[in-house]
């Protein structure tokens, strides 16, 4: 479709471009994580590209690959009407050190979507103004969309948060008042102190 777009990025960031393809008509450019921010800035500011909308931002986990995570962003230009998928790779086999620059300063939509990727995959976004979990609660352990997170994993029960000036106690004991509750898990847990 717009092969010109890919060529333009190759011309400007030749060394940082790892891979390109146009599978199923979706133009894709894979860049080095170190060039992530600069390429994004170019996409927004260059008059030939002028991607004014970051429509989608997500990640994919490939545990057998190194770097492990693929960060995927989809851009759309309202004025030009073209689209582009920009990807980068980050993170070692354990999923640590997954770190890329935040795009919040260029597109406001990056804020929540990066928080979601951080929440679901544990990828850290440098210079993000407000990087905390968004869909999960703060005490959640692990990152659910990683491939090594078991879908049937049970999370430990949380005590009520310590909020000043609120006198409130948990209404039930560990099993939430149900004989079939999560008590087995709590009994096996190393950290019983977290459970009321």
């Amino acid at each position, binding site marked *: 479709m717009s092969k010109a777009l890919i060529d333009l990025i190759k011309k400007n960031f030749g060394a940082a471009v790892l891979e390109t393809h146009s599978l199923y008509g979706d133009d894709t450019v894979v860049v080095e994580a170190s060039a992530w921010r600069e390429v994004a800035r170019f996409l927004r500011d260059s008059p030939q590209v002028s991607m004014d909308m970051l*429509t989608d931002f997500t990640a994919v986990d490939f545990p057998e690959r190194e770097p492990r995570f693929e960060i995927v962003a989809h851009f759309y230009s309202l004025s030009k009407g073209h689209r582009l998928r920009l990807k980068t790779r980050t993170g070692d086999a354990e999923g640590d050190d997954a770190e890329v620059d935040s795009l919040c300063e260029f597109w406001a939509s990056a804020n929540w979507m990066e928080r979601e990727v951080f929440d679901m995959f544990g990828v850290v976004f440098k210079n993000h103004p407000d990087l905390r979990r968004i869909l999960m609660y703060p005490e959640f352990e692990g990152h659910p969309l990683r491939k090594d997170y078991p879908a049937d994993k049970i999370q430990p029960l949380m005590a009520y948060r310590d909020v000043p000036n609120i006198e409130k106690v948990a209404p039930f004991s560990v099993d939430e008042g149900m004989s079939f509750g999560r008590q087995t898990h709590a009994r096996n847990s190393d950290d019983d102190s977290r459970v009321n």
Partner: protein
Amino acid sequence: MEPLDQELDEAELEMPTEPMLLNVGPAHPAMHGTVRCVMELSGEVIEHVDVQVGYLHRGFEKMCERGTWTQVFPYVDRCNYVSPMLNNVGFALACEKMLGVTVPERCQWYRMILGELARMSDHLTCDGAMAMELGAFTPFLWMIKAREMIWDLLEEETGARLTHSFGRVGGMASPPTENLKDNARAVTKHILTVVDEVEKLLLGNRIFLDRLEGIGVISQADAVSLGWTGPCLRASGIAYDVRKASPYLKYDEVDFDVPVGTTSDCFDRFMVRLAEMRQSARIIEQACQRMADKGSVNIDDPRIMLPPKQEVYNTIEGTIQHFKIVMEGLKLPAGEVYSYSEGGNGELGFYLVSDGSGTPYRVRIRPPCFLITAGLERVITGAMMADVVPSFGSLNMIGGECDR
């Protein structure tokens, strides 16, 4: 609205004041879905707000990675549960883009009719609920009654009122019923009457207008930067509609307009939705005229479609074919695809990654109202507490879609 104490000079107040922390939600009647807003109020003005979502997170994207591609349909149903048919069609289109197949013309028209009906039900719910929250209960009941007619029609077509799971890769679960066109025409006629009546009821109402006009304004640049799409973006004057910008199905062959707003306030968002219902009615009428009465709705490819039950029970080939598709799942070629369509709230995207096996490797649903809810902070910061209700209502946050 203006503060009641606007005549008072702050310096004359004797009592020292401090900001008040107010918690709204997650289960507040004016918060449609389950969303929590922690606001810092100075008097009645919102100084800071922290919008917290996630209370309806059910882990759909994780669950999708456990079944087959076809088993994703029930999950997408439960994303935007006010217009599930649009999600069904959107996901089917994504898979078909990957497979490189196009459904027969009859199915494309069928999908358009059902999809536009679903869009109408989405807009009816949003506008109705918005009016109700501002005290106008009658329009709400009328609109919900009209929505019920849509759901009756969809029940007749699909067997389920709400979560149809009716889309299939390469077609639909069953062909249209004989009465589809008559029913669709009758329903749209009734809805257009309701839309006219609601307009008459509300647009002459000073209280209603005062609470919407000039409230919840967002600049065009902000709306684009926030990734807003759908009626909320169009209310800010940008005529971006996926159905026009990159037509799918038969949207390039039908005649319809894209209504846009001018001031990007709650009133514009309300009116854009009303106008879109009229356009949907136009599309439905044209689709009814052009959809053939006979012919297959499913593509003819034994690798994708389940064989007819008659063959499954009576021939060994049919049984094996059925078994392979059900047990191993539909095989999508390895690779990645991003497919987008116009959902009830805006661009509904599906980013699919396949490893060539019958199980999805990654299904990312790009929910339009996740990004719209992200903009709520900008919309209500600096506004009055009472403006939160119409602002939030006009954004049409659907919890299931936002949190997935």
